[in-house]
């Protein structure tokens, strides 16, 4: 699908999660990477956000592998933002 600014904002809101560990990763991702996603990437991202927080954290942490191959590249990009800039 095509994404209007409002659609993208909806995905931004849905990137707010119930776990701080995820918020921290998504915060970086939204700031530096999200706007570079193609419409096809955004389709996948939208699906990824439907996952329960605990499962999503395990995927982002690399503790679990997904059977859905489409998610792999976006997970890779998210993992990149795991390491927080230290003071």
């Amino acid at each position: 699908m095509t994404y209007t600014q409002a659609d993208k904002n909806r995905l931004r809101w849905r990137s707010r999660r119930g776990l701080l560990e995820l918020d921290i990763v998504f915060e970086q991702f939204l700031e530096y990477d999200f706007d570079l996603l193609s419409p096809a990437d955004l389709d996948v991202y939208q699906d990824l956000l439907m996952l329960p927080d605990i499962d999503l954290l395990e995927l982002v942490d690399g503790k679990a592998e997904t059977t859905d191959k489409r998610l792999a590249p976006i997970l890779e990009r998210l993992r990149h933002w795991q390491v927080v800039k230290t003071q």
Partner: protein
Amino acid sequence: MVNVAKRQFDAVIVGAGGAGMRAALQLSEAGIKTAVLSKVFPTRSHTVAAQGGISAALGNVQEDKWEWHMYDTVKGSDWLGDQDAIEFMCKTAPEAIIELEHFGMPFDRVDSGRIYQRPFGGHTANFGEKPVQRACAAADRTGHALLHTLYQRNVRANTQFFVEWMALDLIRDADGDVVGVTALEMETGEVYIIHAKAVLFATGGAGRIYAASTNAFINTGDGIGMSARAGIPLEDMEFWQFHPTGVAGAGVLITEGVRGEGGILLNANGERFMERYAPTLKDLAPRDFVSRCMALEVLEGRGAGKNKDHVLLKLDHLGPEVINHRLPSIREIAIKFAGVDPIKEPIPVIPTCHYQMGGIPTNYKGEVMVPKGGEPEVRVNGFYAAGECACASVHGANRLGTNSLLDLVVFGKSAGDSMIDFIKRERPVHKPLPANAADFSLSRIARLDAQTGGEEVAQVRTAIQTVIQSRAGVFRNSANMALGVTEIKAVAERVKHTQTKDKSKVWNTARMEALETDNLIEVAMATMISAENRKESRGAHSHDDFTKRDDENWMKHTLFYSEGSRIDYKPVHTKPLTVDYIPPKERTF
């Protein structure tokens, strides 16, 4: 007046965490037409983060009694908890857990098939004699399991969910009765009036007022803010629980277990400072004590790092074997959130805000109670609160681990029962809405749309967090808190002029964050001013100029009114429902 769309329900619940969904289930199953509003998808509420467990004196693993659980909770609260509410919670706990089991919650079990119970700090047998296993859990996913179980049951019971709707303000009529809320549908950007016979707030905590917090970003205290703006006083907001070892800068928790395995805390000079403060227990002294010592090290200039603002948790002496085998997830957290590998380097840690003990004042039935006509506690008709946003008050000055999830289900249910009763007996038909019901909320949004020359929301939010972190942290004294009051009042002025670049209507996240910041500042003001006023040390409120608990003058609940920043007090409930009063003792460990 602008024409605002209206929806009508018997009961409206704001918040779909454990508390909101437990209450909703009670109402829907009784055939009450119930709507639940949530900023996020219900199972993404912050309850999902709870891993430790939920307490109840089931006695499945070791002998246990609810009276012992009650004693631990009263002691934990440092005698600020209301003993009727505490009795109600502890006595009802076993039944509440069995109920969850029947709903399908996948608890861990012992061989006989009964629910397994794990040990947890502060849980004791025989009135403090020895530790007892009282925490029930669903692996390390207790909160997740609770949310999923309750959500499924609610869907079956026909609870109507309004997901991604943000409640903005409480609607009270000329009598002060609550008759609904205003809410923003994010998808359309429209403001609605939700007209109700009874409203329950279950919006969770507001841990984001601190710079260092274990809470997710959604914990902005919206229910607290809405209540404050509607003239409801806030109870005991000076009491916040801190966890000593949150990763500096990120907030993510490092469990106590790390120090149990031999991890030690160091200051910038490499000194194991806990030996100085607690020669016997050292790094394993109680949470609040360790937190205070850490804060003192930083305040006295012995903090580590460029800004000298944290201390170090050293593990490398344990060797890679122990770290990799017994603490693998801690190593992961350190690498991920602190950028250090604890096999080689210490982890920067600071005391981190974890839980809000205060909130919207209620009794054990979930009814919101406020002073009126010389009476300390008069029911606000049609208004209820449960969960972390409410103050029943069972946690008093300090919460016992695993008592919060219990609070959600016990008081969620009792609030639901009270609402059913109220709707059936006292409010068979809706009370009319006041003429100007949505004007206030609309004016807040219009202000944001028209604002020019104001400050960015993120900047003002950081200012709130900086003041609260440095002035209302674990370590408090008169001079510092007085400064905090002046500073937070100045920030409150800035909040009135926050500006968002994005003026769009639909899914405007900047606008949502600005509206959340209006709530954060109410919580921050209540916290700072209530703290400055309490001249004693009790539970989480540790005052360096008044180091002792002062039961004679201060065994009372704070009530903070947003209007005029006024402080009032009300007595602690010293009469339990059926058992004898548990008289105060010094809280020793």
